[in-house]
């Protein structure tokens, strides 16, 4: 057994109420490492791709990596994976918090949940055993309430839970870990709801994965802590959270405004920014397990119409989607929207994007007040927005149309709706405008779960948060509004970022430390002895594996596109007059990835990466 792994995985069948352990061989672990990469390998090997994503045949996989639980900074993460209920293609949603290291302490590297329980249940994994128990009394409760109840008997237990959105099979439903951390994207909360699985509770007390080289690990750990201490990025994240991006992003054209139709709203951004949150509403910074950065916000709004008790605060994405995207200048309304989405268990990006779409259609007269049940969905009317968020979680009224995300809503609404949705492959884009950063546009087109800012490190490299010349030939300072040279940037930033996801390490930590430090820590834990080329090759293998997964589900070059709205230049702001050159980007990127004219990995690429079984299925 390689170092860092607990050594076994848990397979639970909710239909039968049974469970068993299984193991993976050393070669599989070395090639696919962990996290979503290992999940994709397992899925392709063992499960049908063509099953309805909300059927019992779609497995829900919760995976850690070999660094999780090691104590190394940022290694709290885990990935929830499946075929997406929202997009129908590969889904993965990584999450920080507390669950990953605790799962490792129970003696498991991951959990695969199959089938469907007849009645609501909770799955409890303790290092002394596994239990499936009745959760009828929890069904209907929001995530905060359910989590508090499940932790009442043991505050050290760590909880993954869904809320009403997941129970109601909203395809934008999220899964919450200990109330403040979310596997948000691609609707995996709906899959959990379809299995009648209210929560997974883990509590480990003894298991500890051995490291291959303790002394080497301690040295890498010491180096990492110093590098984080010296990092201005880490300092900024600690002080302002991810919302530090709001002011800077508005200047550079990164922040979408008014459902992606405007830019240059500096005062609006200032009201919603990390410094403002820090000055007015922050009560403390919060850290995931083993993280010295502590980028998470804990906030409180004492009074006013959106007064909110102390609790987890919004990330940048939430501040943008419930702020600038809706022309809402009130950060307290964003904080309330964030709390509601957390409690109901909904992805803030998807939920906010769907609501912003509805606001635009309301302004155009394509949705009437009558159809909205009397709500005045004018830009910035946050009372109406919050009511619509509630309706979405419960599939009430107009919320039923939004509950499956902006793309499904646009299909049902017709008219100009589809032209107003910014998505790739069915997943709404996160709050980074490709017109300001063309590399991000390519990353959206090619990310395997649809438009995504977390399957890669493009955000860091293109915007200059980090520079890794030791990994690949890159510049210190990229101009955002050019497509030249961006395919190379994206290709390499993907391979490194995907690797980090396989290791289950936080992006912010990976941005703040040198690649040499991450490599040394990884090797000291696992004993794999990888050099940079091998590490990046792992990223390449993972990307290709998931691309093949999607190819088998019908994804091809026709789907590698940016939506009409993004291909329409803005008239103001940092991205004014700019749209990505998608022909250039795709041509260069396809060559780097070894994709054929259909958008399939070429046979020789699959062989070189050791993906022979995938080759047999694709050719």
């Amino acid at each position: 057994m390689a170092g860092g792994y607990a050594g076994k995985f848990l397979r639970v069948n909710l239909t039968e109420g049974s469970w068993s352990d299984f193991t993976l061989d050393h070669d599989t672990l070395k090639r696919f490492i962990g996290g979503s990469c290992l999940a994709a390998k397992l899925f392709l090997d063992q499960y049908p791709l063509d099953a309805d994503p909300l059927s019992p045949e779609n497995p829900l996989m919760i995976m850690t990596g070999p660094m999780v639980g090691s104590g190394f900074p940022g290694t709290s993460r885990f990935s929830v994976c499946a075929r997406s209920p929202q997009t129908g293609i590969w889904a993965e949603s990584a999450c920080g918090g507390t669950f990953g290291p605790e799962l490792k302490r129970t003696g498991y590297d991951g959990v695969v949940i199959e089938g469907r329980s007849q009645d609501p249940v909770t799955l409890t994994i303790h290092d002394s055993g596994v239990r499936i128990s009745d959760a009828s009394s929890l069904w209907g409760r929001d995530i905060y309430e359910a989590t508090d109840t499940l932790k009442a008997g043991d505050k050290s237990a760590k909880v993954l839970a869904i809320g009403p959105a997941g129970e109601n099979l909203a395809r934008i439903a999220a899964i919450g870990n200990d109330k403040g951390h979310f596997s948000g994207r691609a609707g995996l909360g709906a899959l959990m709801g379809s299995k009648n699985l209210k929560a997974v509770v883990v509590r480990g007390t003894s298991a500890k994965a051995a490291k291959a080289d303790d002394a080497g690990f301690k040295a890498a750990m010491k180096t990492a802590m110093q590098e984080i201490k010296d990092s201005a990025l880490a300092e900024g994240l600690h002080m302002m959270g991810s919302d530090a991006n709001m002011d800077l992003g508005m200047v550079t054209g990164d922040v979408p405004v008014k459902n992606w139709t405007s830019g240059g709203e500096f005062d609006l951004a200032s009201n919603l920014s990390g410094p403002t949150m820090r000055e007015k509403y922050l009560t403390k910074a919060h850290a995931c397990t083993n993280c010295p950065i502590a980028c998470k916000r804990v906030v409180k709004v004492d009074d006013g119409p959106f007064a909110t008790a102390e609790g987890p605060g919004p990330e940048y994405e939430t501040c943008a989607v419930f702020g600038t995207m809706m022309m809402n200048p009130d950060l307290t309304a964003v904080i309330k929207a964030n709390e509601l989405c957390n409690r109901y268990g909904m992805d803030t990006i998807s939920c906010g994007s769907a609501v912003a779409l509805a606001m635009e259609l309301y302004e155009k007269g394509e949705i009437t007040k009558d159809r909205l049940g009397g709500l005045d969905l004018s830009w910035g009317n946050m009372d109406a927005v919050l009511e619509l968020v509630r309706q979405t979680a419960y599939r009430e009224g107009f919320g039923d149309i939004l509950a499956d995300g902006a793309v499904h809503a646009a299909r049902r609404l017709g008219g100009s709706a589809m032209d107003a949705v910014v998505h790739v492959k069915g997943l709404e884009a996160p709050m980074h405008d490709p017109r300001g950063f063309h590399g991000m546009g390519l990353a959206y087109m090619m990310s395997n779960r649809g438009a995504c800012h977390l399957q890669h490190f493009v955000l860091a490299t293109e915007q200059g948060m980090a520079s890794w010349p030791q990994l690949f030939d890159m510049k210190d300072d990229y101009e955002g509004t050019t497509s030249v040279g961006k395919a190379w940037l994206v290709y390499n930033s993907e391979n490194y970022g995907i690797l980090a996801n396989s290791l289950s390490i936080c992006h912010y930590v990976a941005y703040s430390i040198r690649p040499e430090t991450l490599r040394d820590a990884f090797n000291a834990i696992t004993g794999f002895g990888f050099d940079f080329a091998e590490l990046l090759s792992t990223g390449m293998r993972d990307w290709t594996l998931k691309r093949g997964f999607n190819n088998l589900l019908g994804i091809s070059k026709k789907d590698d596109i940016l939506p009409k709205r993004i291909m329409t230049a803005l008239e103001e702001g940092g991205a004014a007059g700019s749209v990505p050159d998608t022909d250039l980007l795709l041509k260069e990127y396809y060559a780097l990835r070894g994709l054929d004219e259909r958008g399939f990995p070429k046979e020789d690429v699959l062989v070189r990466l050791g993906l022979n079984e995938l080759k047999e299925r694709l050719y």
Partner: protein
Amino acid sequence: MPIKAMTQEWMDAYKAAIQADPEYKSIAKDWEGSVSLVVNPDPARNVPEPIYLFMDYWHGDVGDFVVCDKEKAESAKFVMTGDYARWKQVAYKELDATKALLQGKLKMKGDLPYVVRNIKTVNKVIDLLGKVDTLWPDDDHQ
């Protein structure tokens, strides 16, 4: 006629460029406080000693712009330190100052959220740095 970089004459020219800019006053209306730049020595590029530059900005106006000693530099509200080559890259806009800060190529002591909130002011004064016709030490050296 180019002015030797990081001399008092150069600081005066930089101050004049800021004062002459039609947009600066409104963009920087909220900025309060002094900034000093510390240029690390680089003998190979004809910068044998550290150089300290102190600039006082206040609500769209500018005060002292002086070459100073270490003690005065360190008294500024914001102290930014970097290698000579990095500062030259910033002046030529080959390297964005914010990115240099995040990548650790420049270091800053001071209230980071304040800088983020006033990023348009920061970008403006850096932009105006490039307006000064400058002879750099290593240009001279060649």
